[in-house]
């Protein structure tokens, strides 16, 4: 039941990666234009709307993007011109400090005092306390799709109004990162108790108050005057307008009706940039690579030689020049997560392109005359993926693999074909996870909830479990890199096609927009408008 929801999330990957990407360090600081000026309304075009605002019900970017500005988290990621895209440095949000016991089994969070909930009934500006955190986590454990983020937490106690203690049955290295995860918003206990409807309302401690949500039309936010960070946010209002049609989104951007838009292709970005003078372009790295999912339960995709041959057939460099106009080699952990990703040079070396060798491997595996495979793709993620699929068909033909494209309707793709492993090969994105644990354990462990490829490698399982036990981040990063090397050497799916860039275009009056690759637009607490 959770799977379709999880998959729904990926719906917006492309758009989100572009709409909430981040600035490259070089373009960041120069455009901030002096001291912030409060006021004004920022209009952002979104391609679609969520079905619910309940942050525990749907991991869809549509849901999470709409509540992120309203809620706070225990920890959050640093935002600013000095933070390179993908740095994801932790900083206090609702917890001002935290202690971790020697054995890694007890986490104590000291909560910020004097934080008020937004002044909306029925919470009415009450003070934020430890019970709210407990209520949130209990609701997550009861019904949240993000329950895995709490890992082996066994006991949660409010020591006093401003202290929360979590007890674990074994060490769990991702826990602290998960407290700042894009799905770990803290809700008021009134919400958990059902005193207001979380599906249609969001009352949090965040910088903006959700004023009105008209489904499939717009979500309107106003400044939260009681926000704990004094003087912020600068914007009076933020409006997410739902504009499903890309052409209409471009037109709205051109006319100034919206001041921020994510481009789905490089060609569109070029056209957009030309259309409005002074447009600023943020060149970002997508939070998910373009993946070639292989169903390893389908013979002969269980054969490492066949998988390697497929990977070696992909002309990544010319694809970069012809289609993506940038980007990097992809890795098992998204390369946008700088701290955990393998260096580009190593990824290049681990993913060579060599059709001759690929043919030899296929022959060795018993397919001297090539083989027939189906390649599934959906148009639900925009035009990029079908285009890549057609490209791959040509690359595979060169090594004798006759790939036939199956275009699958989006709902079928994410509710059955992909999660139920009813495919041979598939091109698509993955949810832009923020913790390597999601990328590795959820996706590649034999018991992983997102393992929709049939990966079952006992050695990998063991390594993936080990990394959750390594508390030292440096040491853990080494382990995570080692796992990635192993995955690439075994050509385990998903085969990385390319980690593409995405572009966000901003009108020049939008200042201090420095996103990280996460959902929820937390960066808007810093953003201001030069002309209003």
């Amino acid at each position: 039941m959770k799977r379709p929801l999880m998959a729904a999330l990926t719906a917006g990957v492309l758009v989100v990666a572009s709409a909430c990407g981040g600035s490259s360090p070089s373009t960041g600081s120069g455009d901030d234009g002096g001291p912030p000026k409060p006021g004004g309304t920022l209009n952002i075009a979104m391609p679609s709307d969520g079905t619910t605002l309940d942050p525990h019900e749907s991991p869809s970017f549509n849901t999470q993007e709409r509540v992120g500005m309203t809620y706070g988290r225990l920890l959050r990621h640093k935002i600013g011109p000095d933070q390179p895209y993908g740095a994801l440095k932790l900083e206090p949000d609702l917890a001002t400090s935290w202690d971790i016991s020697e054995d890694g089994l007890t986490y104590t969070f000291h909560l910020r005092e004097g934080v008020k909930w937004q002044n909306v009934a029925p919470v009415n500006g009450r003070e934020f306390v430890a019970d709210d955190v407990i209520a949130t986590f209990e609701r997550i454990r009861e019904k949240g799709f993000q329950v895995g983020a709490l890992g082996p937490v066994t006991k949660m106690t409010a020591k006093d109004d401003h202290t929360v203690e979590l007890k674990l049955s074994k060490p769990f290295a991702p826990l602290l990162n998960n407290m700042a995860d894009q799905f770990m918003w803290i809700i008021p206990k009134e919400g958990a108790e059902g005193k207001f409807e979380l599906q249609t309302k969001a009352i949090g401690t965040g910088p903006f108050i959700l004023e009105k949500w008209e489904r499939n039309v717009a979500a309107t936010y106003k400044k939260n005057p009681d926000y704990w960070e004094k003087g912020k946010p600068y914007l009076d209002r933020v409006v997410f307008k739902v504009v499903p049609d890309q052409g209409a989104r471009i037109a709205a951007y051109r006319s100034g009706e919206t001041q921020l838009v994510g481009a789905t292709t490089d060609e569109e970005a070029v056209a957009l940039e030309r259309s409005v003078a002074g447009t600023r372009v943020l060149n970002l790295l997508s939070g998910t690579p373009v993946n070639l999912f292989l169903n390893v339960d389908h013979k002969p995709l269980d054969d490492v030689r066949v998988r390697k041959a497929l990977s070696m057939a992909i002309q990544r460099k010319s694809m970069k020049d012809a289609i993506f106009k940038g980007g990097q080699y992809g890795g098992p952990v998204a390369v946008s997560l700088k701290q955990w990703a393998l260096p580009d040079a190593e990824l290049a070396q681990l993913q060579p392109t060599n059709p001759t060798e690929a043919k030899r491997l296929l022959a060795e595996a018993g397919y001297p005359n090539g083989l027939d495979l189906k390649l599934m793709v959906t148009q639900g993620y925009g035009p990029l993926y079908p285009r890549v699929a057609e490209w791959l068909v040509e690359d595979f033909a060169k090594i004798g693999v006759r790939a036939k494209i199956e275009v699958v309707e989006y709902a079928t793709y994410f509710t059955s074909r992909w999660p139920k492993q009813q495919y041979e090969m598939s091109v698509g994105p993955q949810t832009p996870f923020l913790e390597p644990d999601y990328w590795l354990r959820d996706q590649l462990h034999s018991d992983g909830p997102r393992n929709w490829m049939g990966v079952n490698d006992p050695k990998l399982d063991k390594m993936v479990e080990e990394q959750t036990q390594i508390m030292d981040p440096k040491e853990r990063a080494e382990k995570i890199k080692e796992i990635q090397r192993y995955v690439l050497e075994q050509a385990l799916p998903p085969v990385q096609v390319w980690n593409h860039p995405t572009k966000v275009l901003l009108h020049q009056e939008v200042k201090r927009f420095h996103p990280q690759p996460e959902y929820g637009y937390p960066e808007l607490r810093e953003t201001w408008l030069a002309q209003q």
Partner: protein
Amino acid sequence: MSDTPMTAAPPATDAAAADRMPTESRWAGLKRFVRTQPMGAVSALVILVFIVLAFGASMIAPHDPLAQDRTAILQGPSAAHLLGSDDLGRDVLSRIMHGSQISLYVGTMTIMISLLLGATLGIASGYLGGPVDAVLQGFIDAMLSIPPLILALFIASLLGPSVQNVIAALAVLTVPRFARIARGEMLRIKSEDFISAAVVLGASRTRIMLRHGLPNMVPSLIVVASLGFGTVIVAEAALTFLGIGTPPPNPSWGLMLSQGATYFQVAPWMIVFPGLAISATVLAFNLLGDALRDFFDPKLVR
């Protein structure tokens, strides 16, 4: 179509046939068509070009429609690519030429299937009347009450994207048209004297329907088929545009439109030329249909 068998009845009783002068040769008929219906003749010529393109695409087309020239992505019209190249460096002209194969194939198959089914249902319904008519027409009415593209979308998405499934979906869509026309014609023919004569002579119902009914409605069916052909080509393009028609990388015109829409601002040739091909073909079929209708209509003074 002109050598209508009139075994059991004097041709003079058939209004359409009567006007066609039984002695007129096919050649004379063609000349008369060109003379009286110049637009129709031009349309027929366009369709002929379309058919030649479809059959000769692999010989005439300058490039392989699937070959990706990865150094020439999204290039405007030039000597190398007369109508430009698409988002994977494929030649747009060659793809349009090969695309005519798909359009022609889908059009022909759909019209044949729906003609066969529709005419059978219509003739049976019209001649037999009574409960058969009521049931069949009720069914046809029900089908006509559903917006055609929605129905096709529904069927095509149930079956999944492939050329055969598009044909199936569109055939279902087109059957009611033929059934309606065939029924109307059959009702008209049924009241003619030569049918009564055939009945008196002891001809079976099947024989009357097939030997006396069908031949006399051929002109009407040709008109409907010609008009329908255009509709089917557009519908195929629409279904493919919506992602449930002919799957990539086949160079279907609808697929070319759908892919071109993304690059409209930077590479208008990707959408304009296949769009023109669709418009020209559909217009030709419609004008031909109109011309044929006028040509066969005895009430129009020539």
